[in-house]
C-alpha cells in the first residue's frame, strides 16, 4: 500500500490534473475545479520558492559548522545580512502591512541590492566581448554564416552602423525581420512537439525525473 501511495497515486494525480487542464480549454469559464486547482498550484509554487533559499542557507550553515577554509567567514556574513534584511522586512510588514515601509529594509533593497543585482547581471558583458575575440571565427561555412549574420545585426542595433555604410541597417534589418525567422520558428515548433511528447509521457507515468525519484527508493 505504501508503495502505491508513493508512486501510482502520485502518477494518477498528475494525469488527472493534466487532463483536467487540457480539457478545460474547451469549456473556459465553466470549470471551477480547474480554476481552484490553478489557485492551489499558485499557492504551492509560492511557498516552494522558499525551498531553494532553505537549501542554500543550510549549505552555508554547514560551511560555518565545519569551518570550511576560505569560505566560512563569508558564510557568516551571508547569514548576518540575510537575517538583518529578513527581520527588518518582517518588521515593516507586521507594523504597516508593507515591508518597504521599514527604513532599513527599504535602504538595503534600494541601494546595495539594486546595485549588486545590476552589476552581477552586467558582468557577462565582459565575457561576451572576450568571447567575440577568442571564439567568433569563420572556421567553416556554418561559423561564417553565424558570423556574418551576427556582425550585421550588431552594427544594425547600433545607430553608428548606418553612418558607416547606409547598406548595413538594410541588410541587418533583413536578418532581424526575415533571416532569423525560419531558425527561430523551427525552435518554436520543435520545442512545442517536444513539450507535447514529454507531457504525454508524464501523463502515462513514463517520465518521472521531476518527482525526485531516486533508484531503489
Amino acid at each position, binding site marked *: 500500500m505504501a508503495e502505491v501511495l508513493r508512486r501510482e497515486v502520485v502518477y494518477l494525480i*498528475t494525469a488527472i490534473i493534466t487532463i483536467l487542464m487540457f480539457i478545460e480549454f474547451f469549456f473556459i469559464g465553466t470549470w471551477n475545479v480547474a480554476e481552484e486547482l*490553478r489557485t492551489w498550484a499558485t499557492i504551492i509554487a509560492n511557498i516552494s520558492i522558499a525551498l531553494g533559499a532553505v537549501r542554500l542557507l543550510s549549505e552555508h550553515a554547514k560551511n560555518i559548522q565545519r569551518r570550511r577554509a576560505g569560505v566560512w567567514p563569508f558564510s557568516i556574513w551571508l547569514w548576518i545580512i540575510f537575517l538583518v534584511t529578513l527581520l527588518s522586512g518582517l518588521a515593516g510588514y507586521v507594523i504597516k502591512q508593507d515591508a518597504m515601509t521599514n527604513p532599513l529594509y527599504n535602504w*538595503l533593497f534600494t541601494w*546595495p541590492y539594486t546595485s549588486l543585482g545590476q552589476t552581477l547581471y552586467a558582468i557577462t558583458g565582459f565575457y561576451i566581448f572576450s568571447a567575440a575575440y577568442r571564439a567568433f571565427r569563420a572556421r567553416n561555412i556554418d561559423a561564417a554564416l553565424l558570423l556574418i549574420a551576427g556582425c550585421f545585426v550588431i552594427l544594425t542595433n*547600433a545607430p553608428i552602423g548606418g553612418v558607416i555604410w547606409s547598406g548595413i541597417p538594410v541588410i541587418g534589418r533583413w536578418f532581424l525581420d526575415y533571416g532569423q525567422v525560419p531558425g527561430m*520558428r523551427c525552435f518554436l515548433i520543435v520545442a512545442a512537439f517536444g513539450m507535447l511528447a514529454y507531457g504525454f509521457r508524464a501523463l502515462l507515468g513514463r517520465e518521472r525525473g521531476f518527482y525526485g525519484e531516486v533508484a531503489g*527508493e
Partner: protein
Amino acid sequence: MPYPTDPAGIAGLWISWLLMLMIYSYPLYKENPVYRFAEHTYIGLMLAIMLITTTITTTIRMVGPPLMQGKVWYVIPVILGFMMFFLLTPRYRWLSRYPIAILVGAGFGLGMRGVLIPNITKQVISTITPPAVGAGAVDWWNYIYIAIGTICAVMYFVLTWEHRGAMGYATRLGRWIIMIGLGAYFGNTVLFRMAMLSGRAQFFLQVLRIAPM
C-alpha cells in the same frame, strides 16, 4: 534617480558604488576576498527579499482573505506547499511528490493545450501563407526563404531517418538557416549585455558627478 541629499541616500549611493567596484575587481583584476564579500552580500540580500516577497507576504495575501471568508479548504494548498520541504529529508522525500504532482499536472496540462495554436498552428499558417496580391519580388523572396528555410530547419531535427541523399541536402540547408538565426540571436545578445554594462559605466560616472544623474 536624482542625486540623493539625505545622509542615508548619500551613504547608500557610495556603498552601492563600492560594491560595484568590488564585483568588477573579479573580471578587471582577479578572484579575491573583496569580490567574495560583495557576492555573498548579494546572495544574503536576495534570499531575504525573495522570502519576504514570495513565501511570506504573498502567501498571507493570497490565503488570508479566503480563510477569513470561511473557505477553510485553503489550508490544503498551504500544507501541500510546506510538504515540498520533505524533499530535504531522504526518508520522507516521497511526500513531496504530491505537491509536485499538482504543479507538474497543471504545468503540463496548460502548456500542452497552450502550445498547439501559437507555436504550431499559427507558425505553420504564417509560413505557408503567400504574400498578398500585388506583392513585389522582395516579398516573394522572403516568403520562399522563410517557407523553405522553416521546412529544412525542422527537418534537421527529424532523427527518424538518416541525414543522407536528398534528406542530407535539406538538413544541411536547414543547419545553415539555423546558423543565420543563431547569428542574429548573438547580435541581439551583444546588445543586451552591452546595454547592461553601459548602465554600470553610467552609474560609475554619476556617483562621481561626472555624468548627470
